[in-house]
């Protein structure tokens, strides 16, 4: 508008404008007014808006564009309220409160209007809360976080980030089925990131450092010793993970195991060629003993000691993590014939590289499709069996261990799919001579989404063999229940009955975790479960209310809400860097780990491929919070069939249409701009122009393409930005965020610091605090340490902050009688309103796992 030159206004008008654009004036001398809101008479002052009066009186009206420092803006239309006698609902942020006004804030129509507005926003919101990989990981590892550390060659920092949720990066780097990788967004560009191989590399560097005498990194500050003693029964992944976090929390832990050495299924269920025992397992388990954990091996629960014994010995809490060792039966004729072997029994000997008696030269049939079946088959090949046949009743793609099947076939295993055993064929001496199978055809999909196999009559066939290894899943051995162990009970699915959130059994002070309560699951699930149980026990030992724990439990579970999978078409294509395997003919007769690790350059290069799909605003995002309250977000990546076909992302709702995919601006040192997360509320523009005076942002372009951004989308560095961070502070979403991972890299040069304290006062994120030296200059400083990484310490303290915020919001919503959709509740919500009995997680809430194929 070149023709428009603003006339110089007279001084009075300028002053008037400045006044009206600063904080709304609320003179305490203004006369009081009374109005009725939601049937309640409340008091305000003349000149206040309806919104201000309501907020002062604790009545919540949702807003997105409202900035308390400035007059109402009116862009988001979320704060609409009903005023009696008015046809059009006014917006409460701009409408002055009047004496005697009758206001409704939560009518059905208002909620509908707000929900529509939210849906409209989401339909153009090409973003996500948690990255899909982190969402999919049962333990919700901060994957972008450790990959970023990897990319910078910070292996110990990478391992430290990893250990916040899983203590064993190297073990998981070998045995995890890596569900994260199947949801990696990089897959849309070229290939998924090798997430598992990347943390394996970082973990291996830590192990190498241990040889040089360095302690492995500990993810959190070690808590002062509490003097409380915990007995963990079972040293498998669940028990070990629980022990690890209990030790960090300051408790004394003794871990009992019936076997000679700790590790449980990791040691006795996973072959050496996949998980080297001395080089990796023992080293990573050392992180428990280095923290003071004690292993008491060779002591079998139920035989050598009981719960009574443990509690009499003064253990304040007991955790049962004995796993699943009771192999399921096929329920077919001749199952007890000579030569039918329990797969786990077999592995227990064979995984240590010991010859299983009489195995060489035999023909073996392995029944099952899980990791146990795969290990049985591949180990049998290594032990010199003449023929190894793996038979699975479903299709190959539905196999739990599908990722490994090609390697098994390379090594010489014959695989038969879609065949189920009908009987074991024996000779007169009841020795196995073969197994009869029947062809399965695929029927209708079952609960797991896989098509249910059904026998096709008349298609029976016999596979001749000498030995049958059964690996069709396991359940827990619960025969210890009874005298000395009263109080613990079993569920109808033959699992230990454990509260899914507090992990309590029926016996006070006794908890249960891992496979014993979930049924056979993967290692990563067991570890996640163990960690959650440790927090429950910690709370119990500290005398906290376990009901409260339902909320606290979630501190480790930053649950995703909406996710969107958007192709990043502009990215440079780089293929994934794969681990090289030994040739099949070389590896099929030895137990050496068959995958060669990355070189340093490869490990860095692979991690650099990560797109860093993380939203730093998770937990602070008003859009997400309102989306949950108004039921307009999605919880999973899976298609939501009840909401129409294939909704997979937040932008897919009834308004789905064209949407924007903006490039993020990473150029500024402290402020990250993610325009894809911008909802055009204008808060940053208004605050920057009216409060700060820099005016870096404004509404740019027109119509649907309007975006609040810098002129010409230039870098923030080229604007009058003063790096005050107020824009990021006011942003209701993750469109403008401080860069914690960058901030933490700044160092104070203490030789030059004059203790002025200006940096501390200026920093809007409390990234800088005063240290003891500052005490000399400013006696009122509270935090006696220079803590440059306060913002980056995204540890439990920080996580708690946002859990608390979310909980407070939910509690308020409930207290005010606003409906909160139970099917969308985060597990951060207060006790009593979490839906069902599950722990808020799909898949491992206590139901028996799938078709129970052996799982690690």
């Amino acid at each position, binding site marked *: 508008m070149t023709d428009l030159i603003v006339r110089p206004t007279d001084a009075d008008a300028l002053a008037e404008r400045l006044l009206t654009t600063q904080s709304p004036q609320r003179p305490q001398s203004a006369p009081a007014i009374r109005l009725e809101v939601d049937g309640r008479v409340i008091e305000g002052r003349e000149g206040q808006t309806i919104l201000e009066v309501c907020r002062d009186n604790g009545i919540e009206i949702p807003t997105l564009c409202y900035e308390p420092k400035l007059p109402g803006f009116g*862009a988001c239309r979320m704060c609409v309220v009903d005023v009696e006698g008015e046809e059009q609902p006014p917006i409460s942020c701009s409408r002055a409160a009047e004496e005697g006004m009758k206001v409704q804030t939560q009518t059905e129509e208002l909620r509908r209007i707000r929900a529509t*507005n939210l849906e409209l926003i989401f339909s153009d919101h090409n973003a996500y809360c948690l990255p899909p990989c982190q969402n999919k990981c049962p333990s919700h590892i901060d994957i972008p976080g450790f990959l970023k550390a990897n990319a910078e060659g910070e292996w110990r920092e990478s391992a430290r980030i990893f250990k916040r949720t899983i203590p064993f990066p190297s073990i998981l780097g070998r045995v995890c089925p890596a569900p994260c990788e199947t949801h990696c967004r990089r897959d849309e560009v070229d290939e998924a990131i090798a997430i598992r191989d990347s943390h394996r590399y970082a973990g291996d560097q830590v192990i190498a450092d241990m040889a040089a005498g360095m302690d492995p990194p500990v993810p959190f500050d070690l808590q002062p010793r509490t003097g409380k003693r915990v007995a963990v029964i079972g040293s498998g992944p669940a028990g070990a993970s629980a022990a690890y976090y209990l030790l960090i929390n300051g408790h004394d832990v003794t871990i009992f195991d019936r076997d000679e050495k700790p590790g449980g299924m990791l040691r006795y269920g996973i072959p050496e060629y996949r998980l080297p025992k001395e080089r990796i397992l023992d080293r990573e388990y050392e992180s428990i003993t280095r923290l003071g954990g004690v292993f008491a091996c060779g002591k079998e629960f139920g035989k050598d000691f009981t719960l009574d014994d443990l509690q009499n010995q003064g253990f304040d809490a007991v955790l049962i993590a004995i796993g699943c060792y009771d192999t399921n039966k096929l329920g077919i004729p001749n199952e007890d014939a000579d030569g039918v072997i329990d797969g786990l029994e077999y592995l227990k000997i064979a995984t240590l590289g010991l010859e299983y008696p009489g195995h060489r030269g035999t023909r073996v049939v392995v029944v099952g499709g899980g990791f146990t079946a795969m290990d049985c088959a591949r180990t049998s090949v290594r032990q010199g069996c003449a023929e190894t046949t793996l038979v699975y009743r479903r299709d190959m793609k539905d196999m739990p261990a599908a990722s490994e099947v090609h390697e098994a076939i390379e090594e010489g295993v014959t695989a038969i799919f879609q065949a189920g055993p009908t009987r074991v064929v024996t000779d007169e001496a009841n020795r196995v001579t073969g197994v009869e199978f029947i062809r399965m055809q695929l029927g209708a999909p079952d609960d797991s989404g896989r098509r249910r196999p059904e026998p096709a009559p008349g298609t029976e066939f016999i596979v001749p063999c000498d030995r049958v290894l059964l690996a069709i899943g396991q359940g827990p051995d619960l025969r210890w229940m009874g005298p000395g162990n009263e109080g613990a009970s079993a569920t109808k699915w033959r699992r230990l009955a454990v509260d899914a959130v507090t992990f309590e059994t029926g016996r006070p002070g006794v908890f249960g975790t891992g496979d014993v309560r979930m049924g056979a699951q993967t290692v990563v699930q067991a570890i996640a479960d163990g960690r959650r149980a440790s927090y429950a026990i910690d709370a119990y030992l500290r005398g906290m209310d376990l009901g409260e724990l339902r909320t606290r439990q979630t501190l480790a579970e930053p649950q995703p809400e909406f996710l969107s999978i958007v192709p990043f078409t502009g990215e440079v294509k780089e293929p994934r860097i794969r681990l090289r395997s030994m040739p099949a003919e070389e590896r099929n007769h030895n137990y050496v780990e068959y995958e060669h690790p990355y070189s340093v350059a490869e490990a860095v290069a692979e991690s650099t491929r990560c797109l860093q799909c993380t939203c730093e605003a998770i937990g602070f995002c008003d859009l997400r919070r309102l989306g949950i309250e108004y039921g307009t977000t999605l919880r999973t990546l899976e298609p939501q069939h009840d909401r129409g076909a294939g909704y997979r992302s937040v932008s897919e709702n009834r308004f789905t249409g064209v949407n924007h995919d903006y490039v993020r601006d990473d150029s500024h040192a402290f402020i990250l701009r993610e325009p894809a997360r911008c909802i055009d509320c204008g808060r940053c523009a208004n605050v920057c122009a009216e409060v700060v005076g820099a005016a870096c942002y404004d509404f740019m372009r027109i119509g649907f393409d309007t975006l609040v951004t810098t002129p010409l989308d230039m870098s923030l560095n080229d604007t009058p930005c003063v790096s005050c961070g107020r824009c990021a502070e006011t942003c209701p979403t993750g469109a403008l965020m401080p860069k914690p991972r960058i901030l933490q890299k700044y160092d104070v040069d203490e030789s030059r610091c004059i203790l002025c304290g200006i940096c501390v006062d200026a920093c809007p994120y409390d990234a800088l605090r005063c240290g003891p030296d500052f005490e000399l200059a400013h006696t009122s400083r509270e935090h006696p340490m220079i803590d440059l990484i306060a913002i980056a310490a995204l540890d439990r303290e920080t996580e708690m902050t946002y859990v608390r915020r979310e909980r407070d919001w939910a509690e308020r919503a409930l207290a005010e009688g606003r409906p909160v959709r139970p099917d969308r509740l985060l597990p951060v919500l207060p006790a009593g309103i979490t839906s069902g009995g599950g722990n808020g997680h799909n898949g491992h809430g206590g139901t028996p796992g799938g078709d129970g194929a052996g799982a690690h």
Partner: protein
Amino acid sequence: MTTLLSTPAGWPRVVTAGFGAPDPLDLDAAVAGGAFDGLKKAIRTHGPTGTIALLRVSGLRGRGGGSYPTAEKWHACATAEGSVRHVVANGYEADPATHVARALMEERPYAVVEGVAIAAFAVGATESYVAVRAEYGEAVRRLREAVARAEAAGLIGANVLGTGRDIFIEVRPVRGAYMLGEETVLLKGLEGKRGQPEQRPPYPTEKGLWGRPTVVNDVVTLGAVGWIVANGAEAYAAIGDPATPGTVVVQVAGAVEEPGIAEVPIGTPLREIVGLAGKMASGHRLKAVVVGGVTGGILPPRELDTPYAAAALRDVGAHVGSGSILVADERTCVVDLATLLTRYCADEACGKTIPCRIGLRRLAEIGERAVSGHARPNDPILLADLSEDIVASALCGHERAATTPLTSVLRYFRPELDEHLLRSTCPAGVCHPVAVASAGSAT
């Protein structure tokens, strides 16, 4: 130049009287024809409050689309708190299909200047502005010249007609997009800010230009003021519909033989107004009229007896809007037309509010899906629901009115819409790749 349609002899010409003068800038000729008689009368006879009272009796309402009583607006401004007031004449004719304001500003610049001067006198404004769309170069030139000549003649400027009152008028070309036609956006434009509307209340009469009480009137409204003051309120009140008296200048365009503008008494049936523009083009049949410009309602022939007045039009789902009446014949697909209009509104949105920025685009997409054969099962319901929610949470008139074209299709042309949605055929043979209905089945 747009044609001025001939109207029946008895119809008064308030705004368009004097159109076609050989030199519109000839002040002497204009004064001889009665220009500035109103201003003189207001100053010498009525005084500020008397002038407002006179306007109230005349029943003049805003012609910019809002139909708000002009006298009330002036009264609110004159009595609002503040020492400095402004008058802004809105000459930003946003609707791309109308040239009524342009014709007035070019043909009778002195009528506009007089109207602004009377308003400024009545509310007590010293500085007034005529904000003209910058593309209207000739209008800007003529208005500036008219202001200069009137000031030189002492009709406006310092010490107007020896009263001691100063009435300065400045012609401001403004450049922007469609949204600049909205009054709060226009004020932002004059202030040099991004053109986005403000929540009302407070209305500009309370807090307008630079936060001061401001009257914003359409130039066409102001163009009638001089006549009313000169000829008396009763003369104006006697014209047309007794409830909302006066005349309105409309522009009839589309599939008619003689498109042009015409001044018609309010309450004239639509059929008669359309008839002013001659027969339908080359023997085609009238299928629909779009009443109210790009945000107008699309009405079928059976609604042509509707009187052209605010309340009656609202009842049938249309509005006066920019004064545009677009005639469509049977070669037009109303779904396609409504989609085009909605998309235009969506693309011209200022982008401030969610329902407008995203909602209008989604509304247009529903239409685009219908005309391209990609309709979703719930689209008609979605159309109705979304329109309702946009109207309910709208910030300004734009998003509220922009839902009109598609909702009027739902209301009057549902069978044609259903042909698109259910059978992927376009009876008018316009939409592709929606299959074109065979000639025989076109009804």
